[in-house]
């Protein structure tokens, strides 16, 4: 049962073809891995999915509904939540506030209700805070509620962004290089954490990763991108052995 399907997505920036006729779909509950060399269009694909960029051609269907031209906040409201390759945390807030912000969609935002602080509003606020606390604890940052992002280590900020995304109660979670800049041990830990969350919240995942061996263990299916095109798609074992992939991407080191 297809949850999300992207058909024939193309995008170019001032002549640079970032995506060329890319079709990718995911099934409910599946984990899709995306790999590809730098500049192959992976992040651009996420940007289009989350509504930050508009595709030049193609369409995106979520459960059969067209969301190609839907603005980011509505896409988010439909359960597609993402993280960013270069982290986009809120610098002026504490870790806990960052995560609470992730739950914005659930919060009652009626203007008069907020001013009157009705019982419902206060209850929702307290619940939101507890949920955020739980998410923060889930990623192992329970002790850092009041820390500002500048006081956290790089690895911790990556986890914080994950917690913020989880508090958005995603159905489809898009992770853009969640383990970038980490060694294999740390990367393994993060992906284990993600796997646990996937289990608990019945998530559908799309993960961009450079660490192929780690991803191969973790994903159900892998798409390989190269120069804006989908090069290969298949089971992790097959993809890793595919000659074209080895040539385009793995080349020297991995395998």
């Amino acid at each position, binding site marked *: 049962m297809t949850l999300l399907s992207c058909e024939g997505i193309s995008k170019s920036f001032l002549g640079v073809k970032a995506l060329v006729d890319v079709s990718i779909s995911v099934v409910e509950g599946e984990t899709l891995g995306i790999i590809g060399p730098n500049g192959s269009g992976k992040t651009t694909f996420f*940007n289009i999915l989350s509504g*930050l*960029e508009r595709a030049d051609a193609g369409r995106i269907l979520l459960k059969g509904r067209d969301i190609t031209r839907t603005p980011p906040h509505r896409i988010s409201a439909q359960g597609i939540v993402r993280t*960013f390759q270069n982290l986009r945390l809120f*610098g002026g807030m504490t870790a806990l506030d960052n995560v609470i912000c992730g739950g914005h969609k659930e919060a009652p935002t009626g203007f008069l209700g907020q001013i009157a602080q009705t019982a419902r509003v206060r209850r929702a606020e307290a619940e939101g805070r507890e949920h955020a606390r739980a998410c923060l604890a889930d990623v192992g940052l329970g002790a850092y509620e009041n820390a500002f992002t500048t006081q956290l280590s790089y690895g911790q900020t990556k986890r914080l962004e994950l917690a913020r995304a989880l508090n958005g109660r995603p159905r489809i979670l898009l992770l853009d290089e969640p383990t970038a800049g980490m060694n294999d041990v740390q990367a393994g830990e993060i992906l284990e954490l993600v796997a646990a969350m996937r289990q608990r919240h019945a998530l559908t995942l799309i993960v961009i990763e450079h660490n192929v061996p780690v991803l191969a263990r973790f994903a159900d299916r892998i798409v390989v991108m190269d120069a804006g095109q989908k090069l290969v798609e298949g089971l992790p074992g097959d993809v890793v052995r595919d000659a074209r992939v080895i040539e385009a991407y793995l080349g020297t080191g991995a395998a």
Partner: protein
Amino acid sequence: MVYYLEQLSNGLAIGSIYALIALGYSLVYSILNLINFAHGYVIMVGAFVALQLLALGVHPALAVLLACCSGALIAMLVERIAYRPVRHANRVIPMISALGAGLVLSAAAQLIWGPEVRSFPQLIPRFPVEIGGINLSSQSLVILAISVVLVVASSWFLHRTRFGLAAQCVRQDMVAAQLMGIPVNTVIVAIYALGGFLGVAGSILFAMYFNAVFIQMGLLATTKAWAAAMLGGIGSFQGAFWGGILLGLAETLAVITVGSAYRDGVSMAIIVGVLLLRPAGLFGTTIKERS
């Protein structure tokens, strides 16, 4: 009809002044994404410096040149003190810092030269020139000529020289430019200096045209310069020029049709109109922030 043609030449002159001032804003914005509010105050100080030098008996040409250089110098100081330390901070912060620097300049100018409106000597004689039966003002024609020369010269400088090439690189991608060994700081300082120089030239012409120098002229020119820059497309050289000309004509038209009180409304209408209808300006393209 003749009356309208005469007004046309006034519109062209005032428009070309706006263009000169607009270039300073537009250049900085296109490279740094910063509305450099200090610019308006810098050029106001420059006009006062020219006035002061003239009062001291300096030869007019030299006085104007020195004033323009003082504008470049102050602009460089502003960059160094108020802008560079906060270059990478959240985007409103450099704007506020620039405005703070501007307010310091404004207070200093007020302490030195006082809050009154001063008249500015007519360095360019004003007499009617008859061309094909139409009386044009000599001053308007000279102003237009000076502006065109300055705009063409700077356009050449920014498009045909090594420095210009470096500036284009910094504009496209500051980090990459830095990695490639382009002296980014020098380029930015030079851009500020160029903006200050042209801006003061503009403000001196402005002072001559309206025969007035006053503390608020910088901020007054700000909205007009921006209307010009946005009309032409931010960061575009020819754009700023044509935008300025169009604004000058539109203002002149407004003055003859609805009255001079509403002259200043034109620029705001243009800014809002451009934002609503054509954010990239008439001749430009925008570059979106990367996600």
